[in-house]
């Protein structure tokens, strides 16, 4: 009797194996429904724009104590709503995790993704996405205690640096110190929280991770003012808004709203002086604010869309200072300065 059961179980196992093998072979990706009309028309008909964002990263996208979404990425979403409807509140946020964010965009659940997503070749091509522009140049940074007085890698001779294993972080760390011939001691943990605790307790002299992450971790510390994020970068992490592949008209709207906010900072237009700027004689400002030219018409937006954006949300510098500046989680602007100030922000020509 026992032998029979034995044979039966084996047969069942073999069957399960065969079925398992077949099952995995049959998986087919469903083709996303082709959209003939642009997403922009869909959004206008719907009356609001749906934005995918982060809900747990202070500074970039999080829910504030009064239950509203707030942050740097969130404000770019509001700017897009202000550009389309002239009203920054005609927006719906969908909080997404890192794993959910790309499928949500690919399946059309959201119109635009603004969730600190790094622009990489694989995502741009294999995942069928289109980045609009770069709104934040992130990179691996270094957090140290303020009283150490450290400014550069050379100052950090002999330091113990805590980091999380399993990413490119530890490789960038080794490269950065080795290329400068500076001696250091790495300390590796499996989770970001453990790394941060070890640093905060003084087990390590410094902590390394993406700058935005470091700033968020610091803002949650007992004494954030005792720690400082150094103005140096160990890797490239360009973050920006992205849309589904192939809808150029909608993608254009997103990118030109973002560039418009950068251009406003470059031209010195902000939420306080935007009304006076309407009578400016500077041709760039006149074109930006829709007094001259056909920018709005070409994009399928009202002529004065940038006026609404700047008035309701602000220019790039205002958004940055509000969330990431000294009032927010305090990240030095570094590469996120305008190109005219030696940074990387370079809005394309507004004409």
């Amino acid at each position, binding site marked *: 009797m026992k032998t029979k059961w034995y044979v039966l179980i084996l047969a069942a196992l073999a069957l399960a*194996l065969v079925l398992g093998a077949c099952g995995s072979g049959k998986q087919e990706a469903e083709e996303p429904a082709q959209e003939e009309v642009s997403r922009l028309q869909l959004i206008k008909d719907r009356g609001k724009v749906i934005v995918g964002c982060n809900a747990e990263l202070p500074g970039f996208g999080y829910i504030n104590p009064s239950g509203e979404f707030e942050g740097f990425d969130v404000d770019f979403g509001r700017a897009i709503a202000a550009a389309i409807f002239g009203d920054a509140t005609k927006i719906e946020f969908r909080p997404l995790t890192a794993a959910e964010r790309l499928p949500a965009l690919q399946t059309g659940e959201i119109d635009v993704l603004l969730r600190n997503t790094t622009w990489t070749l694989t995502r741009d091509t294999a995942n069928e996405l289109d980045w609009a522009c770069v709104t934040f140049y992130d990179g691996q940074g270094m957090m140290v205690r303020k009283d150490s007085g450290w400014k550069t890698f050379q100052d950090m001779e002999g330091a113990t640096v805590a980091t999380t294993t399993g990413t490119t972080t*530890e490789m960038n760390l080794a490269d950065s110190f080795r290329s400068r011939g500076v001696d250091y001691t790495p300390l590796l943990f499996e989770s970001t929280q453990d790394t941060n605790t070890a640093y905060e307790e003084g087990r390590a002299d410094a902590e390394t991770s993406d700058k935005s992450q470091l700033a968020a971790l610091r803002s949650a510390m007992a004494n954030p003012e005792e720690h400082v994020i150094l103005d140096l970068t160990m890797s490239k992490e360009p973050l920006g808004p992205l849309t589904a592949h192939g809808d150029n008209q909608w993608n254009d709207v997103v990118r030109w709203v973002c560039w418009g906010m950068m251009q406003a900072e470059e031209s010195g237009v902000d939420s306080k002086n935007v009304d006076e700027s309407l009578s400016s004689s500077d041709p760039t400002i006149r074109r930006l604010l829709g007094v001259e030219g056909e920018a709005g018409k070409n994009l399928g937006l009202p002529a004065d869309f940038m006026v609404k954006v700047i008035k309701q949300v602000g220019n790039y510098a205002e958004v940055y200072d509000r969330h990431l500046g000294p009032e927010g989680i305090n990240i030095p602007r570094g590469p996120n300065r305008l190109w005219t100030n030696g940074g990387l922000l370079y809005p394309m020509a507004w004409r």
Partner: protein
Amino acid sequence: MFCRLAGRPDDPSGLPFPDSWKDCTVKRSGSETSKVPFWRDIRVLRAVAQFVFLMGVVALILWAISNYRQRGMIFSYSFLDEAASFDLAEGIEFEPTDTYARAFLVGVLNTIRVAVVGIVLATLLGLFTGIARLSGNWLLSKIAIVYIEIIRNTPLLVQLFFLYFAVILKLPRLSSAVVLPGPAFVSNRGIVAPWPRLAEAFRLWWPFLLLALAAAIVLIVIRRRTRARIGRPSIRGFWVLACLILIPLAGWFIVPGRPLRLDIPELIEKSGGVIKVEGGVTLSSEFTALLLGLVIYTGAYIAEVVRSGLQSVAKGQTEAARAQGFTNGQIMRLIVLPQALRVIIPPLISQYLNLTKNSSLAIAIGFLDLYAVSQTMLNQSGRVVEVFFMIMGSYLTISLSISLVMNIVNKRMQIVER
């Protein structure tokens, strides 16, 4: 069986193997194969089951290989010769330009270090606690019970987190480190203590160490021989010890200069008021936390193993020994422990293996053991399957080595039948 029972009563001679028995077996096997259909024949079924199982295993392996091929992955260990380009701070010297193979070696040695030290300390703690639990001293036995019950009934990972984050990281910072005589510095960076290092004169001194060892061995052999001949050793054990201490000591004064020098750690203030310790030997916080965690956890289990061993020795043994005037210490050392060890050693082996395998929890508290280093290796090289084979192979080798040594010890401890 039936045949045998049926055949016996018929046999008038009463011989163990009657002729009818022989006939019976032949008849039995012949008649049964013809009667029982092959699908109910146990031998056929067994063969079929084994064949099906074998085919299942082969199919699984072939399936895995074909999946590998389909994804264009090639099973290869050539990455081991590439530069690792990450850094490891614990254990033997390691540079980012060193190979993956050396990185793995660092991890293996760190695991062996924590396992060996842990096994020795856990055995001592377990032996002491196990005896204390059975002690007549009320306080001692209750403390032992509380320790054993708390530790055995909470998960090791929780204990490790507690030890590392709530105890060791809460120690004073390096700038205000506790200074013990030595000086040894205790801070949340770890323990830095003085450590003897070999000096120039050591090459003249080591022959004395060798001489002491040789003399001690000769004395022990003489002791054994005389004891076998006349029933008691001719030389007292004291002289063996004296030999081991006095000869190196004499050498210490004969040799010019000091053979060992003490490496004393000191606090050095770096730029920006940052303090660093240089010199001495360092026990990192992570190593200390992992070692303590493993020793305390496994010690509790070993205590129970020891207790069961001690209780397995019949009470009459103790009573008989006491009647003959043995002291309590002698009873434990000469009568009870040698008998208890036969019960203790087999379960002790599995506790040693548990300690070794549990050391892979090191990754949670940042100690660079075999598993933690491998995680980094497979993340950076992308060689997941190859690295996992290496991990499993290494743990298997370490565990089997421990088993081998302990089985030899076990054999020597068993009762020798005379």
